[in-house]
């Protein structure tokens, strides 16, 4: 049976509507959302209400958590001073616009959702703020999936969709106990694990302008990345009219989005 996984909607209503329409046209009714319903985009309440109306199972993203907690996104997650200042502005704007009901909704979202052998998270099983980038060290990536006791880990946060297979993983450990001359060798062979990143509906960063999400077939285990066109001009106008930085519209329109992240791919916020 096919199921859809969407992530990083970022208050971009035209993009969310277009993706949900595309999912509906495929006859898919099982949808999971990996969070970041708000942030940067101009329609945070509208997007949350649409997710609520459609009863889409959703876990909490980093923006959802920060807005609820009244925290600015952690400084260490920004790559530059200008990104940090723009991010803080967007954070403040979103906090002011969100209704109390919608803040409560975000506050009560779970950190993760488990469905059989699949685990759904925003960033990583460790944190909503951790980035699992496609080129992350294979051992570290495998450790994330294995520790989560999942066969497939669905994540978002990077805004770059990808499917990564971690095949034939083996971990060798040499242990020398105190007082003993013997060295014990242990070797664990791990079955294939997968990390599937759903990309981003509202703020794609895959070099194009189309919204991205994934379709997973739990019988065949096939995963497909889908790209959907939407009315970007509509979103850009809404960004300008909302008084958000015009640069957000420019980046979206030109496919120049870049990840607001620290240099270190495995960056873990200790806030």
């Amino acid at each position, binding site marked *: 049976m096919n199921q859809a996984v969407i992530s990083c909607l970022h208050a971009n209503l035209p993009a969310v509507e277009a993706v949900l329409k595309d999912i509906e046209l495929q006859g898919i009714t099982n949808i999971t959302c990996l969070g970041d319903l708000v942030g940067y985009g101009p329609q945070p309440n509208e997007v949350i209400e649409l997710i609520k109306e459609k009863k889409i199972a959703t876990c909490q993203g980093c923006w959802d958590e920060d807005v609820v907690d009244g925290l600015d996104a952690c400084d260490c997650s920004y790559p530059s*001073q*200008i990104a940090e200042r723009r991010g803080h502005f967007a954070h403040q704007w979103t906090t002011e616009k969100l209704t109390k009901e919608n803040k409560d909704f975000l506050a009560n979202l779970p950190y993760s959702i488990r469905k059989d052998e699949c685990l759904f998270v925003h960033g990583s099983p460790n944190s909503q703020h951790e980035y699992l980038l496609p080129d992350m060290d294979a051992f570290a990536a495998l450790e994330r999936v294995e520790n989560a006791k999942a066969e497939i880990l669905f994540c978002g946060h990077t805004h770059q969709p990808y499917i990564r297979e971690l095949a034939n993983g083996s971990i060798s450990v040499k242990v020398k106990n105190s007082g003993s001359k013997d060295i014990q060798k242990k070797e664990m062979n791990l079955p294939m694990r997968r990390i599937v990143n759903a990309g981003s509906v509202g703020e794609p960063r895959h070099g194009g302008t189309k919204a991205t999400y994934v379709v997973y077939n739990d019988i065949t285990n096939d995963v497909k990345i889908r790209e959907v066109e939407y009315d970007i001009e509509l979103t850009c106008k809404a960004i300008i009219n909302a008084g958000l930085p015009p*640069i957000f519209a420019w980046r979206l329109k030109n496919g120049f989005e870049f990840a607001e992240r620290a240099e270190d791919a495995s960056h873990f916020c200790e806030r």
Partner: protein
Amino acid sequence: MSQTWIISGPPGCGKTSWILNTFKNHSGNCGYVRLGGYSEINLEQAINSTIDFAFLKDQIPNLLDLSSSKLPLKVEKENILIIIEFPQFFIPKFQGISGIDLRVIKELEIYNLQPNKYLHFGRDLELPIKDTLDFKAIESCSIDLKKNIWDPASLNTFWFELVNGAYGDVYRAKALMNLPDGRYILFNWILTQKGSQYQTLNQVAPLNGRPERHSEIVIQGKNLNFQLIKSTINNCLLSDAVLEHHQATLRNSQLQTSRN
């Protein structure tokens, strides 16, 4: 024998690079004057930026700046090469020195300079041919950045946005920027040429406070949102506290290296 040349051409044609090479190949003293250009119909006057002089002076420390004073008496006048750089968007009507704009001749009287050679990019084959824009109308903006130091990652973002049209249609952008590690970098971009050119200059500022040297950005184009450019730049510049934090880290790192 002393020589005084005028070199003119549109923005981005390669005047400064050519002048640098010419000076490097000259065995005697070198002097430099940069004129600002004149307003034409529908054509804003080019900005008399001192970026070019700061760059040339970095590369040729003995270069004489004749824009601020007449030729010093003590300088050996024999075999001096003086080059006057002058932005001019259109090709002169006449060949040779008779093609020099009369306003330029008059301005040069202040410096007591009489040119004996005039070359214009796009007209004289002695100069390299570069694909430059046919300027019909242009807006110019110059922002003085003296004593300002950029957050390097923010500078990268800002420059990308600038040359890719986030703040209007940029034809030309040139800047001399300070980085917290003391580096002094020339940024150069023109629409018709591929990519930006970056050159780290020889001067390195001490890791203590803000350097006094020249720093500026000059942007030329159409429909430029100067207010947005200025506010974005302000968000990219380091505060005293952040700068001190950067510099203290670098000082400690240098200390560690010298101990090892």
